[in-house]
């Protein structure tokens, strides 16, 4: 598939229209919103300029809006790269502020550790953000509202969800590009597990596991379909992700307005077949995951992709014929 360095007006309009067709009819195929693949060799690069470029290219009008940045904070292990790098999140915060957002918060509800600030401290958020605690909402302990699921994929009929996220104008999912030992890959859609409050469901949010992990991811996507995604692929994780894998330097950031399109693209970059990732097929249907239905901007997939190590049990989701040149 060809890629242009920037998102053209035609791509953007076609993507937006395609998304509308898909949402409206359920079965009609159309182009998804475009996905940007941008190079960033390390976290010392000008990530602020990169975030500004993403906001500009995707025409994100956040003037006067409340923006919530949702990184992936799970556990801390100095020997690997579990969490979204704080410099990525800080750069996004500054860029959204500069774009006119009325309020930008960082919010997360880790699934294992209930002492969230301790985890954020270990992960470098306090040393990166001045007064981090004043910018941060622990979604595990936030006020909640019960939300009913209409035609759920999982066994859930409703979920209590944090008001900080329900009340924001733009949710930005900022995951780490990682393999996942149960669902294949954890990206912008799986990252939404962190919205489910531990204060109601506990640590871990085991109710999602029993309801079906892939199905619960698809349900959360249904509840937050307009989540903007910015994936930290500067250093990803391969092997036994999302916690015990090994660092995989990739030097990229992947972004877009459609989480399905972003995650499918990330899968291809990781040499994972998105059509074999259950939550993607549940959320969009296998046919909609075709590469030609996802407009690409910036780098070509083939130019940046690399085979992520997968656990033997996940070899069945390996992309059989990855893009030439990768």
């Amino acid at each position, binding site marked *: 598939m060809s890629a242009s360095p920037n998102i053209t007006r035609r791509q953007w309009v076609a993507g937006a229209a395609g998304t509308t067709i898909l949402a409206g009819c359920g079965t009609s195929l159309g182009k998804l919103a475009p996905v940007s693949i941008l190079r960033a060799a390390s976290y010392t690069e000008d990530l602020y300029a990169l975030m500004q470029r993403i906001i500009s290219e995707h025409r994100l009008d956040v003037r006067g809006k409340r923006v919530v940045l949702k990184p992936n904070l799970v556990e801390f292990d100095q020997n690997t790269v579990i969490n979204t790098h704080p410099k990525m999140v800080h750069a996004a915060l500054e860029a959204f502020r500069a774009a006119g957002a009325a309020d930008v918060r960082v919010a997360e509800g880790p699934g294992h*550790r209930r002492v969230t600030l*301790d985890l954020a401290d270990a992960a470098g958020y306090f040393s990166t953000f001045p007064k981090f605690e004043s910018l941060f909402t622990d979604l595990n302990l936030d006020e909640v509202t019960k939300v009913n699921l209409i035609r759920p994929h999982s066994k859930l009929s409703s979920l209590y969800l944090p008001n900080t996220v329900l009340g924001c104008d733009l949710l930005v999912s900022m995951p780490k590009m990682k393999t996942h030992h149960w669902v294949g890959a954890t990206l912008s859609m799986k990252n939404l597990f962190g919205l489910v409050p531990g204060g*109601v469901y*506990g640590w871990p949010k085991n109710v999602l596991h029993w309801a079906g992990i892939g199905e619960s991811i698809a349900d959360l996507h249904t509840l937050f379909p307009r989540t903007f995604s910015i994936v930290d692929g500067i250093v990803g994780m391969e092997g036994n992700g999302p916690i015990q894998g090994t660092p995989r330097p990739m030097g990229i950031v992947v972004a877009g307005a459609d989480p399905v399109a972003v995650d499918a693209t990330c899968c291809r970059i990781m040499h994972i077949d998105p059509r074999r990732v259950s939550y993607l097929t549940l959320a969009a249907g296998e046919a909609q995951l075709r590469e030609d239905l996802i407009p690409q901007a910036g780098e070509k997939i083939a130019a940046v992709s690399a085979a992520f190590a997968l656990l033997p049990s996940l070899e069945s989701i390996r992309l059989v014929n990855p893009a030439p040149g990768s």
Partner: protein
Amino acid sequence: MASYSEELLDRQNPDGGWGYSRVGSSWTEPTCYALLALAAGEVYSSEGTRSAVAVRTGLQWLTAGQRSDGGWAPRSGVDESTWVTALALLLPADLSAGDRQRASQWLLSQSGRESGFIYRLRLRLLGVRLDANQQFDGWPWYPGTAAWVAPTALTFLALQKLNSSTRDAQIEKRLAEGKAFLLARRCRDGGWNHGSTQALGYDSDSYPETTGVALLALHGSNAPEIGNALEVAERHLRASHSLEATSWLTLGLLAHGRSPAEVSVMPHQGTVAISLAAMAGAARQGRNLFVS
């Protein structure tokens, strides 16, 4: 201690409960911990004082929240009783005997889904061997899910406290299972994490806060595993900066006769952490409400 109590009094909501943060609405967990902390500070007996009024209105908020099934929901508006029921039972004799009985019955009706008949039958039919650490009955955070370390430890403490006054064979059976559950869920380093010692065959390491609460629940145990766990807890204490984690570690270590060091912590803390710090301070003076 006094400053923690003052901070808790300042944080009480007009409805009598406490929120997780200074401005949040009332939840069961922070309300129970705040009441326990005030009890640990012995303010219950100070009739007519601001503290006594706070305790009375807090207890009114709490007792009004008991559900018809005997349990408590995490907060009003959540229509499910959960693990927080154990915290209400930990309060020193503030509930009526009937309310305590209903709460304990609800807790006894709960167990990890992995120890249920249907789950185990399914494993057997699939030819899957039950993991060694799944053989014992613990408690879940939320009904219908698996058992984990923290809710098992806290329910263990609540039922143990209840059983010290009214011996009950059913409770003693669950206490024995709960203790075995905790000992079986130790991580490779000797401490505890949330309760998953391995993920697909890969070993996991422990966390400070869960190591502290598990050690607290295992107070009085002479199990050979405890010695190593205490060393892990002391190591965690030296490395932790959060009031919540260091308070649990302090409570756990004190319960085993250790003298944990005072450590510096981050200044910005929630109601649960402040309450636990007050309780850890009281425990240093010989008054550990979790175990006495």
